[in-house]
């Protein structure tokens, strides 16, 4: 995991953090997205650790069912971590506030899945490498705004 150079300030701005993790716990994509207004948000340098910590319970839950959307796999200071595992076992993890509706999270994950498939279909994109496409980034942010800012 690459450590971001985040400040120690605990911002109060509403935020949702998404991380896409590939095989071998390699971070492929991460973003802080606009979210519904609610409590505190962990400092930046803790975000990756929180998501990393949730990977164990995620692995356990992946093999207990056939659905891709695994609702909540872990919590950190009352902030749930929701997860979605694709057929190719790429994990989308979302750290958000508990006020976020499950349906909104599910729709958001399906939208990100659609966008991820478009990236993966590119024959020049190697699996498990960072996603650098700006179009992907923009569309993830737009769908976060559509689903989370209500």
């Amino acid at each position, binding site marked *: 995991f690459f450590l971001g150079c985040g400040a120690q300030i605990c911002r109060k701005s509403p935020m949702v953090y998404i991380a896409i993790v590939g095989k071998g716990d390699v971070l492929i994509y991460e973003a802080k997205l606009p979210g519904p207004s609610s409590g505190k948000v962990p400092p930046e340098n803790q975000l990756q650790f929180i998501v990393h910590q949730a990977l164990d319970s995620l692995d356990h839950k992946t*093999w207990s*069912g*056939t*659905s*891709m*959307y695994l609702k909540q796999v872990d919590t950190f200071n009352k902030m749930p971590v929701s997860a979605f*595992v*694709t*057929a*190719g*076992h790429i994990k989308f993890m979302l750290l958000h506030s508990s006020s976020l509706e499950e349906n909104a999270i599910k729709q958001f994950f*399906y939208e990100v*899945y*659609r966008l*991820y*498939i478009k990236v*993966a*279909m590119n*024959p020049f994109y190697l*699996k498990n490498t960072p996603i650098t496409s700006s179009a992907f980034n923009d569309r993830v942010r737009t769908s976060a705004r559509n689903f989370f800012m209500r």
Partner: protein
Amino acid sequence: MHTLFCTKYVFNSLSEAGYGVGLRAIELLSFREKGCRKERSIIQMLNFVRTTVWKSLFGRPADDLQISNAKKNEYYIYDNDPVTCKYISNSNAARCAAYTAGIINGILDAAEFTCTVSSILNNNRMVFVIAFTSKVIARDSS
């Protein structure tokens, strides 16, 4: 020109090319055909390969799926008429099924069913021998 075609390198490259196709095929087909469900057991996964994948790639499901009697980690997928070997006018035509073997390998590896896949011609049918690692078998039986 004939000798160049017969080297192992060609068939390994075919396998690798198929691997990339397999990685992409599983994501796309799970989304389109399976309605965002992922498979949990070996048999379910192989049935997915046998029906959905084969239908979308070759237009028909594969002919048969069997488990080996002797070795518990080997499964066989049969294909009577492999498309990749059809129009090759060379004695090594059958080895071109390495491409399809690569596709199967990519699909199973992506779904965390690590295995090795090889293709053998047997009684005029192409057999894809899928050998899973012991970890996968242990996970499947639990």
